[in-house]
């Protein structure tokens, strides 16, 4: 049964689609699936969970650094998608990008409210609880397409100079504004803006095939 999944090739460059998309491929998510969830299809909801929960949990855990809190937030987000799934707009991006945007924004909100309540703040990526957790074992739905996508994004990100990676991570995962990053790193504001711009432009160029073919 699972063998069929491994025949589904990534939509990213250098690969091509060999057979129709299997029912439970990890990525990308079909906009029609979101539409079914919006209509109250519980089975579609289960599929959406299988396809996106690992990515979204990875994200919430990276931002919040606490498994229980990350799981709590993930549950909240999926319930919100169930209730308000209709809010997804095809014109504004891929379903994955939409889910990631919603999740990141909710996690950053939670991080900020926690910071304002006097919790500690993580200073660099090496300090997060996420990296201390046991390594991920591929789930039943994690297949070649997902692994290849991961490898491609990882490679593209690693191609950026370290300073650009750091600026992007502080903005994206710590929720810091360019001014906050500049004062945190003791660098001129213009330098930080340039790092983010260059980093994102390069990522956009390197990863474009991922969404163009999707």
């Amino acid at each position, binding site marked *: 049964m699972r063998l069929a999944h491994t025949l589904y090739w990534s939509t990213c460059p250098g690969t091509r689609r060999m057979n129709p998309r299997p029912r439970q491929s990890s990525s990308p998510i079909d906009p029609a699936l979101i539409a079914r969830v919006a209509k109250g299809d519980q089975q579609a909801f289960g599929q959406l969970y299988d396809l996106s929960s690992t990515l979204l949990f*990875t994200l919430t855990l990276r931002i919040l650094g606490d498994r229980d809190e990350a799981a709590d937030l993930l549950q909240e987000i999926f319930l919100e998608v169930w209730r308000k799934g209709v809010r997804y707009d095809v014109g504004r991006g891929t379903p994955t990008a939409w889910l990631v945007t919603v999740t990141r924004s909710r996690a950053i909100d939670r991080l900020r409210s926690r910071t304002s309540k006097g919790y500690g703040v993580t200073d660099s990526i090496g300090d997060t609880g996420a990296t201390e957790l046991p390594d991920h074992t591929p789930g039943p739905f994690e297949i070649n397409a997902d692994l290849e996508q991961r490898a491609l994004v990882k490679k593209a990100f690693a191609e950026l100079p370290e300073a650009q990676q750091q600026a992007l991570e502080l903005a*994206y995962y710590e929720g810091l504004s360019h001014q906050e990053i500049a004062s945190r790193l003791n660098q001129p504001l213009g330098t930080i803006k340039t790092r983010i711009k260059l980093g994102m432009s390069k990522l956009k160029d390197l990863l474009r095939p991922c969404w163009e073919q999707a």
Partner: protein
Amino acid sequence: MEHEQLEEILPLYVVGALDRQERQALDAHLLSGCPTCPAALKEYHAAAGLLPYALPPNAPPAELKAKLLETIRAAASEPDATQAARLPRLKPGAWLQHVIPPPPSWIPYPATALVALLLLAGSWFYVLSIRSQVTTETDQRQRMETALHGETTRIAALQTQVTEQEQLLVRLRDEVASRIDSLAELERILADREGELAQLRQQLAQREQGASSLRKALAQRDEMLTFLRSPTVQVVSLAGSDMAKSAGALLLYEAESKQAFFYAFNMPPLPAGKTYQLWAIVDKPVNAGIFSTDAGHKGRLIIRTMPDPAKVAKFAVSLEPEGGRPQPTGEIYLAGQL
């Protein structure tokens, strides 16, 4: 902010690195119907959406899915507002029972039918009036939505304007700061120049003093030159006595102006508190003036009104106490006659 500036900050927008003001300006720009920014934004969004794929993957707790499915099933079985669309429909005709409750058994059927008919007619008029009201309200709502859209666009334009004004203010502030700097520099230069000017004034005062003494000396020379050029000048020479053997003097007399110029040379230096005094001896010695000597042992004297030398028996110079005396009291140093 201009379109180019806003397009530049799109990458910062998708990673959440903009401050509130920039974010609002960009939102307003996107709402204003920019033809290129939404497409670029979509791509940046897609790229940012892939970022978590670079993280080491972590699966959520296994029980989470079951918990979620259970929650949504429980919610689906409890009818609520959000799931209203998914409620089972009423049986055909059942709705009438909600409008007209079944009649009590003591009312006969024709009466029930009449009441039902009247109620039905009443309801029909009610429905018609509600429908016209709904139409009016829908129109009103559409008008309000249009107005709201207009207002939103106006607010967006105002926000852009405010942002531009703020930038202008910052630029002006910078300019004022630089002007203040150059003003301070000019003040410093001015202070330097004033110092120089004061020095120059001092020098000028000294020069004027020198020039005034030179002018005085020049005037004396002129006077003497005029004096010497006159054809009526007479010369009396005076010779040194034993007191000053090498000394001598000349007295030049100009008859027309009755002026005389006396010039002595090789005079011995004056002892302290002493002066030389010139005498014209007619019947008795008459004071003709006092003089001192300069570094070259020379003495000069101008006599404004001089008696005719022809009537003067003798000219003599004696050493007298400072200020001179009415009659000679000291030694004679020079003597001579016409």
